[in-house]
């Protein structure tokens, strides 16, 4: 029976090519766009190179200070003093890594200028994050203690400064007029990895300003690695307790200290929504709402089209009914047709998404990003499509199967 339905469905799709094209276009493009967006989000939200341990990492990257009547406030990244003196001494974490954010260095090659994003990091940084070293190794506490001017550079920086694929460990790179010895070369990191994207990494002991100054606001952030995700509540509790115990000198104007240890999702959500209250809920709400709105129009369009398409076959239905087909079996038949159509659209959509992502990866429009269509994302997309197909098929099919035989044979006009 099913085989028959499929055969008929295939014939029908071929008969009215315009309708088939319009439906397939709507389905496949909608799915392709959703898949591409979902793939990018998956890459952004799911821990990836070199933040593979991101699932059990909390970040501290924003400190807010207010005065007592909350009329003035100051917000920035944290100070080295706060992270080194308080956060690093916590008991629950496995490791705490400190790195700076938003620094840059200028280097010159011939008559070309390189503007490089730079992070000052501590020795734990290389344990918390799993960088792939193409050559050399990271710096450790020896280099930090000896105040050594050493650098870990990215593949990109190496290619631009020394030349494509050179062996560079031990060579000298001049940054902001200061000489550094290259210790290692790491694989590039895409720009949207909040804690690890940079062109070069230097030991914090070479920071040129007075970074050990006492205070809470500064240019540093910390990544706290927990033994496991289940430690998060304990870790956050210890963190909040530690913050509440901090004594702020009375002559300071800003007396209230607000700082939080956040998960990656919490961090991205609060950055995207700029909201203080439940940013995660808002972020997911906007995402899901946006996708729903985006799907609504093609879905309504598909329903309208399906209704018309079925209307056209009114006389066929009339004849089948006259020969005893039940409303039930007619509904099933139309649903099978519709699902076949949506699956076909889904396959085309997947292919489209795949091609677009390959082009994106190859073009370098999004620096250093390598997106992959994830199987789960694909399954989610496909189930979306099936629901889409069912919803847009059920309504017209039911209406048609209820039509009176006389009207149907006459050609519609229910």
């Amino acid at each position, binding site marked *: 029976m099913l085989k028959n339905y499929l055969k008929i469905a295939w014939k029908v799709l071929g008969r009215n090519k*315009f*309708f088939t*094209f*319009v439906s397939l*276009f*709507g389905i496949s*493009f*909608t799915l392709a*766009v959703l898949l591409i967006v979902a793939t990018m989000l998956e890459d952004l939200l799911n821990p990836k190179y070199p933040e593979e341990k991101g699932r059990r990492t909390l970040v501290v990257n924003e400190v807010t200070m207010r005065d007592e009547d909350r009329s003035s406030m100051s917000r920035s990244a944290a100070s080295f003093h706060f992270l080194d003196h308080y956060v690093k001494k916590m008991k629950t974490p496995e490791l705490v890594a400190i790195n700076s954010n938003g620094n*840059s*260095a*200028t280097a*010159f090659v011939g*008559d*070309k*200028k390189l*503007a490089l994003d730079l992070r000052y990091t501590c020795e734990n940084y290389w344990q918390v994050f799993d960088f792939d070293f193409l050559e050399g190794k990271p710096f450790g506490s020896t280099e930090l203690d000896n105040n050594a001017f050493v650098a870990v550079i990215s593949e990109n920086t190496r290619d631009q400064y020394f030349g494509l694929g050179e062996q560079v460990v031990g060579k000298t790179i001049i940054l*902001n*007029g200061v000489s550094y010895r290259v210790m290692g070369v790491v694989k590039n990191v895409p720009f949207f990895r909040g804690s690890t994207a940079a062109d070069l990494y230097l030991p914090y002991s070479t920071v*040129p*300003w*007075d970074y050990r100054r006492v205070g809470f606001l500064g240019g540093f952030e910390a990544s706290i690695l927990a033994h496991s995700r289940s430690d998060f509540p304990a870790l956050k509790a210890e963190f909040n307790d530690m913050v509440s115990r901090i004594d702020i000198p009375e002559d300071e104007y800003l007396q209230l200290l607000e700082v939080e240890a956040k998960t990656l999702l919490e961090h991205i959500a609060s950055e995207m929504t700029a909201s203080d209250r439940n940013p995660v809920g808002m972020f997911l709400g906007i995402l899901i709402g946006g996708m729903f709105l*985006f799907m*609504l*129009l*093609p879905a*309504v*369009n*598909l*329903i*309208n*089209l399906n*209704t*018309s*398409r079925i*209307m*056209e076959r009114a006389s066929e239905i009339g004849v089948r009914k006259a020969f005893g087909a039940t409303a039930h079996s007619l509904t099933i038949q139309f649903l099978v047709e519709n699902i076949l159509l949506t699956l076909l659209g889904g396959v085309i959509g997947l292919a489209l998404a795949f091609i677009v992502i390959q082009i994106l990866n190859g073009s370098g429009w999004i620096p250093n990003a390598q997106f992959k269509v994830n199987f789960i994302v694909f399954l989610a997309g496909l189930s979306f499509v099936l629901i889409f197909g069912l919803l847009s098929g059920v309504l017209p099919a039911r*209406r048609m199967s209820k039509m009176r035989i006389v009207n149907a044979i006459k*050609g*519609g*006009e229910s």
Partner: protein
Amino acid sequence: MIKHLFKLIWNQKRKNAGLLFELFFSFLVLFAVLTFIIYNMSRYREPLGFNYKNVWQLDLSWNALNEEEQLAAQQLFQEQLKNYPEIEKFSFTNRNTPYGSSMHINSAGYGEKRASSHTFIVDENYQDLYEISLTEGKWFTEADMAAGVRPVLINEILKDELFGDEPVLGKEFQAYGEDPGRVVGVFDNYKYEGEFSNSTAQMFLSPEEGHVFSSILLRIRPGTGANFEEKLLKDLTRIAKGLTARVIYVDDNRKSKLLQVWLPMLIFLVISGFLIFNVALGLFGVLWQNINIRKAEIGVRRAIGATQGNIGRQFIGEVLVLSTLAIFLGTFFAIQFPLLGVLGMPSWVYLAANAAAAIVIYLLVAFCAFFPSRQAAQLHPAIALHEE
């Protein structure tokens, strides 16, 4: 005629409800996208008020230098920068410069009135460097700065907020918190946050005695490259040991700032374009199908004397009435934005977007209905009636 069309639509209400919803939703999408675009383009058309070409921004990080060392270095820089033929003009300023990411807002007052103002602390050469035009008075000079009360320039918006229609030149007011300032001039547009930004209340404030600046703007002779930049940075760090300096090309900053608006605009356009194209194709299919089903009706009308034009007009008229309904419904929602004033855009933007969205919908529908209607009109009465 219209009444008749309504009746026809009502007779097919189930089928038309789908179309109506589709058109209504398309209208809302268009309204949102067009509001965004019209608003930004109206911002873009307003003059920028300064010339960013060939300007370099030299950002200074004083690091561990103490205040005396900083001041001494600043004096030396003043002399040193005059020596380079590559530098046409230069001006010292705080970090809140055009296309940068910093802003500084402070509260100013005159009599009972208070207003918050974007405040730029700059030196006497700033106007000359950025070619800012004044509507009244003159930029401050070193003589003005030595004369006691700090000279200040305000823009028209701040002038209106604080002084209203009073003449302002020479007036003293609380320019910087409680610190007094004396108005020496009024300046025109200065959209330092970029072409797409809103004009706000602003003032240029002369520095206090002993103020240490954090940036230097350089107008560079065209064609100057990284070689000079390297030399300049080397010279400056030789003068002030421990200083870190970097050069930002203002033109690069401008591009990335503009991209922050162009990019979403492009994405919205592409997405709404896709949605509308999808709807157009669907509409075309549905209309075509509808007309095919109504062959008998067409035959009868032709047989009793309706012309081809009559038939064509009837079908186009039907969809136009339907889209008018959808647009009315959409306008009801759209009109809430200016009424409630939620997004703080001027009302005319919403009205223009509403009208533009309506026009696009009408054009789209008329275009989609044209071919099926013509096909219907060209049906021979005999063939059309044959179906019956």
